[in-house]
Each structure stands twice: as C-alpha cells, then as structure tokens.
C-alpha cells in the first residue's frame, strides 16, 4: 500500500517516462475512488492507463481508519465487542465469534457445547450473508443488477434472523466472553429452518442468471488470475486462496469451536481467476447450509454460558436478589474479567478469510495490545498483481471478486 508521497513520486515517474517515449502514446493517471461506485467503500485506486489497459495500480487505503486497535487498549475485554461488529460489517456475527474465542483462548476457557453450536450457526449465517453480498455486488459490477436485488432479498431474511437472535440487524454484538448475550429465542429455530428451506431457490436463481451465462463467463474467466505461489506469498486467505486450488480452511486445518464435529466440504478452484472465486463462494454457501442444518439438528441443550462467575456476568435475577452475585457483577463490569498475562493468537475462518486477533495481555481487565489481522487488508495487497495488463472493466470484476470490506481493511 502506497502512501500519498509515494503515489506522487510514482505519478511523476510515470510522467517522466511518458515524456521519454512519446511514440508509445500518452499514459493517463486516473483516480478511482474514494467515491466510486465499484470500489465498495472508501478505497482509492490510482490507475495508470494506456488507453483502457491498466499499466499499474496503487491502492491508497486508510479513509475509514478509526483506530480500533488503539481503542481496544482503553476498554475492557467485553466493551470491545461492539467494535468487532464494525470490522467486517458484512459479517458482524462471525467477528463477534472470532473475538470471543480469541479472548477465551487467553483465559483458557472452554464454552459449553450449546454455546459452541449457536456460535457455529452465527458464523455460518454470517458467511452466507457475506457471500450473498459478495456475489450480488459481483453481479452488479459486471452489469447484472437484478442478481444484486435477489441476493439482497435473501440477506434481508438473514437480518431478520439476526434481529430475532440478538436484537439488532447489523451491529449484532452477540457474543460475550465465555458465552453469549442471550440464549436463542424460541421463535428463532423455526425462522431459521424456513430460511434454510428458501435459500437454495435464490442460489439457483443466481446460478441461472450467471453461472453458465456466456457474457458473465467472458467477463470473469481468466481475469485476475492468482497462482498458488503468489497467493501463498501474499498471505491470501479465504475463498480467494481456495480458488487458486489450495485447500486451506481453518475450520478443517485447525478446528475450533467444535467445527470438527461437522461434516462439510471445502470447495477449491483450479485456475484462481474471478470465475473460480465466484464458484467457490457459491459452493461455500451450500456447504454453510449443510453446517447450519447439522447444527440445528443436533443442538445440545443446557447452559449457554460458561459457569465462571468471575468471567461471565451472573444471571440478572441473582444480581437483583443476592449480595454475592451483585458484588461479582459490579467487579466484573467495572474492572473487567481478570485475564492472565501472556500473548495469544487466535484466528477464525471468516467469510473473507482468516480473521486473527493477536492479544498481548499484561493481566487485568483490558488488553495491553490487540492486533487485528484483517483478511481484507491482506487480500487487497494482491490487487496490483492481479490487475496489471487487464482493462478497467476487468479491474471492476477483480475488485468485486476480491470482496473486501474497508471497515476491516482500515480498522
């Protein structure tokens, strides 16, 4: 990622080169974003064009920087949860889950199975929601606007589910350290079953409109190819990595949160172009349906919070009536849970890739340092390599297939 100064340097270098050999035609430096319909947020790209062909791309990031990592140092572990909503704001539930597991790893805490299963449902719902948006905007960026509306219709139902589960559609803040904010409400499971029954129809609709459509294939096949080696070198994760043919899914590779109990496949591509990324996302949605189905069929009963009075807030009824719980409650909120000192790294397979939290704790209620490894940030690095030599129209397709979120990239 280039700084302002570097971009200026590169611009002037390009101008000098341009003046050097006039016969090769004029190069054009064009700004794409931060306000552009297909940079999906506030990403600025400085493009060097020869006609419509892209000679160079310099992504300029940071327009959505809010200092989340610094903010974390000034609040308790629990208070940071709403901030994780705003990382990958297209899959807030998955971020909540990843953060909770990260802190629990620091604490050495195991959550009860019901909590694990609900968290699996959350993470997979978030995955479906994020991929629906990714595919919808992909369709829109190559010109098929109706696809976008069809997938958004389905996302709306996911938002209803989120609302039912945790009380908010977008900023869920659902998990707590050692558990969840609340148990599943009784009307949630029927709603979820209905949604799972309806979703394949929409996926099939998108299939009809895009998968075998020659125009779509022309726009995406062999566009923005990333080889296995390049992907590994850049540290790319998620569907983009898997589209290159590397079967690397943290849910399988380092199972966490009970994923080892579920039966699902990891889709991988063969070429690593935009089309493979699209296919991988489509298949991942189908696999997520399978996972959620298994989770709700085998949903364990019992507690949904770890029985740790010093970590999890006591039940409200007890707080209102018993002295000891009231004291715990106050200490827990004001001082935060007492974490041991140490360093842990936990990463989860988020819709966009590996979302990691590197926590440095010096004990006490707040993190000493919290580093977020955001998949969008890492994945976006590969853009210049992928875009070189393609046309502007291809760049749009590549951007859409990267499916990044600036909230997470800039943090």
């Amino acid at each position, binding site marked *: 990622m280039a700084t302002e100064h570097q971009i200026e340097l590169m611009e002037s270098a390009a101008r000098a080169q341009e003046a050097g050999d006039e016969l090769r035609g004029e190069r054009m430096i064009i700004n794409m974003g931060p306000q552009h319909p297909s940079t999906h947020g506030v990403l600025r790209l400085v493009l060097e064009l020869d006609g419509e062909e892209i000679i160079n791309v310099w992504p300029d990031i940071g327009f959505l920087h809010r200092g989340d990592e610094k903010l974390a140092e000034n609040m308790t572990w629990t208070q940071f949860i709403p901030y994780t909503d705003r990382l990958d704001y297209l899959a807030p539930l998955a971020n909540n889950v990843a953060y909770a597991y990260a802190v629990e790893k620091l604490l050495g805490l195991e959550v009860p199975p019901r909590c694990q299963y609900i968290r699996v449902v959350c993470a997979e719902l978030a995955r479906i929601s994020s991929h629906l948006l990714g595919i919808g905007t992909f369709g829109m960026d190559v010109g098929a606007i109706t696809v976008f509306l069809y997938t958004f219709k389905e996302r709306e139902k996911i938002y209803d589910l989120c609302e039912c589960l945790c009380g908010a559609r977008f900023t869920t803040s659902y998990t707590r350290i050692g558990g969840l904010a609340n148990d599943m409400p009784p009307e949630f499971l029927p709603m979820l079953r209905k949604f799972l029954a309806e979703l394949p129809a929409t996926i099939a609709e998108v299939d009809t409109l895009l998968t075998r459509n020659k125009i779509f294939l022309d726009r995406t096949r062999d566009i923005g190819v990333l080889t296995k080696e390049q992907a590994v070198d850049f540290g790319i994760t998620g569907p983009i990595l898997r589209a290159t043919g590397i079967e690397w899914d943290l849910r399988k590779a380092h199972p966490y949160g009970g994923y080892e109990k579920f039966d699902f496949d990891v889709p991988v591509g063969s070429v690593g172009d935009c089309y493979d990324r699209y296919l991988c996302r489509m298949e991942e949605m189908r696999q997520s349906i399978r996972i959620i189905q298994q989770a709700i069929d085998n949903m364990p009963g019992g507690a949904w919070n770890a029985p740790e009075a010093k970590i999890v807030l006591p039940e409200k009824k007890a707080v*209102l009536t018993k002295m000891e719980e009231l004291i715990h409650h106050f200490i827990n909120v004001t001082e935060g849970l007492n974490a041991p000192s140490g360093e842990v790294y936990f990463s989860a397979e988020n819709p966009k890739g590996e979302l990691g939290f590197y926590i440095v704790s010096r004990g006490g209620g707040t993190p000493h340092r919290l580093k977020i490894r955001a998949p969008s940030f890492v994945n976006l690095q590969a853009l210049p390599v992928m875009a070189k030599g393609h046309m502007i129209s291809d760049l749009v397709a590549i951007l859409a297939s990267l499916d990044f979120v600036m909230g997470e990239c800039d943090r």
Partner: protein
Amino acid sequence: MLVQRPKLTFWERLYLPQVLQGLWQTLSHIPRKKFTRQYPEEKPPLYGKYRGAPELVRDPDGRVKCVACQLCEFVCPPKAIRVVPGFRKEGASDASVEKEPSDFIINMNRCIFCGFCEEVCPEEAIFLLRDFSVSGYSREEMQFHKDKLLELGGVREDKIQKWKNK
C-alpha cells in the same frame, strides 16, 4: 472438493440459451408477491428482543428505578451516557433507596444501541425499547434528558420488587 467449471455446449457458446433462461427467470418474478415494505404506512415487524433506543423505566408504584449507580455510564462503549447522581426526597415513600439521578442524559447521536447498559443495570432500570426511528433537528434535541427518557420508557412490571421491604 473441486468446484466444477462448466463446459459450455455449442448453443451456450452462442449466448442464447442462458440469456433466454435468464429472461424467463426475471419475467417469472413480475407476478410474484413483492418483497419490499411501504415503510411509513407499513411498520416493520420487530423480532425477538429488539434493541431500540435505551430508555428509563418506573416501577408500578411510579418510582424511578434508577439508583444512579453509574454502572451504565461506566460500561457504555461510546460514552453516550452521563448520570448526575442526586438524593431522593427526605420522607418520601422511596426514601430508603437513598439515591436517584438528578439528571440522566443519553446522547442519542453517540448511542450505538449495543444494549450493554441494559445488561449491566443491577436495578433493571434502563431498557432498550422498541423505538427505532430516533430523530431530531439539532444536536441539543438529541440529548435525551431524564424526563424525556422516563416518559419514553413508561412503567415496567417488577416481579422482584427489590426495594419494597427495605
């Protein structure tokens, strides 16, 4: 599991069959039931325990439940709440509670509706109720003071009645 890249048949390579299928797909949507909601006339259904605007409640006796412990002020991640503690009136029926907020301000511009205040309140005095269209013309108007919050919150049933017998 390798995702299959389709091999297009001769006809599919001529663009037409998929375009025709797509056309049929979109056409079949025309008579379908519309998904959108005509908002101001048609209110959205709110599922589950919806987290709307945070508001203060009274118990069935009309007593302000908040005891100004300031736990919500402490926990609020965006620091939207400010509690000005005060004392209850001498000799009043709820005088045993001792404290109450002399003012309670929620800056609705900052509130992120996370629900932490409700979660930590040891008195069940603040709730995120179902108001989702909080709006105003000025920043001042968006500072909700105690009276407004109490008015919005109304009366809430209290099964435990913690202070009844103290």
